[in-house]
């Protein structure tokens, strides 16, 4: 039996990413102070990322897309799969806090009043069983 919980909670298949008028790198400058141009594409971030197998773009590709102003990066699943574990930030040889860049990319979307997660899909049983910290952090990361 298919339950509401098995329904997809994700919205991003619907291409909800808002239109960004300026250059991505300029928009991100207001949200984070990371030197994204410093990335030399070594892939250390991708190698240590726990969710890389599920991602459509690897974290280093996300940075490359930003540098090249390829705005389709905002429709990538990668920025939502990042769980802010800081493994990439810890290991980046160029000292780029990629975790913060991912958050800035999410914020670019969320601040246009777009929700990534549909909270209606949660069942009563899940609300009872799953730790509260999971809900608060998901809502903080994915709800605009």
């Amino acid at each position, binding site marked *: 039996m298919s339950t509401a919980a098995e329904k997809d909670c994700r919205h991003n298949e619907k291409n909800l990413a808002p239109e960004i008028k300026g250059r991505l790198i300029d928009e991100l400058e207001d949200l984070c102070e990371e030197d994204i141009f410093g990335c030399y594409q070594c892939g250390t971030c991708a190698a240590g990322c726990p969710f890389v197998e599920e991602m459509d773009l690897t974290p280093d590709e996300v940075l490359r897309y930003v540098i090249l102003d390829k705005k389709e990066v905002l429709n990538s699943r990668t920025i939502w799969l990042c*769980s802010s574990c800081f493994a990439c930030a*810890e290991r980046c040889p160029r000292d780029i806090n990629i975790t913060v860049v991912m958050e800035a990319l999410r914020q670019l979307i969320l601040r246009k009043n777009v929700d990534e997660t549909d909270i209606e899909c949660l069942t009563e049983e*899940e609300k009872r069983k799953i730790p509260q910290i999971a809900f608060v952090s998901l809502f903080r990361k994915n709800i605009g």
Partner: protein
Amino acid sequence: MRFMELLYYPGCTLKTSAKDLEATAIKIAEELGYSFKEMEEWNCCGVVASLTSDDLMHHLAPLRNLIHAEDEGADKIVVLCDMCANTLKQTSLRVKESKDDLETLNSFMDKENDYKGTIEIVHFLEFLRDEVGFAQLKKKVKKPLKGLRVMPYYGCVLLRPREVAIDDAEDPVIMSDLLRALGAEVVDNPFKIECCGSYHTIDEKEATSKRAHRITNFARDRGAEAIMLSCPLCRFNLDARGKEAEKIFEGYEQIPAFYYTQLIAIALDLDIDACGFDSQEVDPLPLLKDKGVVE
């Protein structure tokens, strides 16, 4: 016996789905001569630290807790939840590094006093290592966890970002040292510092189950019979989502996940009811009975 009082910040999960973590920590503290005094006033810490440079608003909730702690005359708070400890520490760091940010945040506090920056945030695991000492703890062990092969699991927020870490971000030893003090055998695992999937347990259930499998399976192949961890969300993911991984990976069996406080409580021979084992998907009791540490 006179107890030394510790001001305790619980957070939401300790009062709901992680009551077993709180109950065992309180018992251990008492056994070691300390009593937890819950903060008279506390609120949700926000769980995840605010990361964008312009977002000061989400530092308000953690800072309010630090102000309440100052109001109670404390110089430190003990925290059990890894996510709360991390979030509170990151806010504390931000206001320590930027007087301007502290001033802005203080100006938003209508009823509260200004934050003076005096509160140290201590994770209980740190407290046991630094203030009690594992050697001292070892002396209190009545039932050594002899023959119990345990994989320590740190996850992310105990260790990263390194400015707020309780141990070396890439090569932590605190849990191995604790396990040895309790008489257990440590099974090391390269995935011990990899994220459990965190809040994706809600919107990416299968991916989180796969994470639980990846983290556990390697250690299981090396003989681990149990996992020791400290975060309520890691526990849910490695227990409940790990159990669901059995349906994805043929022949895979999830091993039980213990809070470090549960293992300490058993080794110190404290009231086993506080452990709340009946709330876990993977029942740890058969293993403990097999090892002869519980009846």
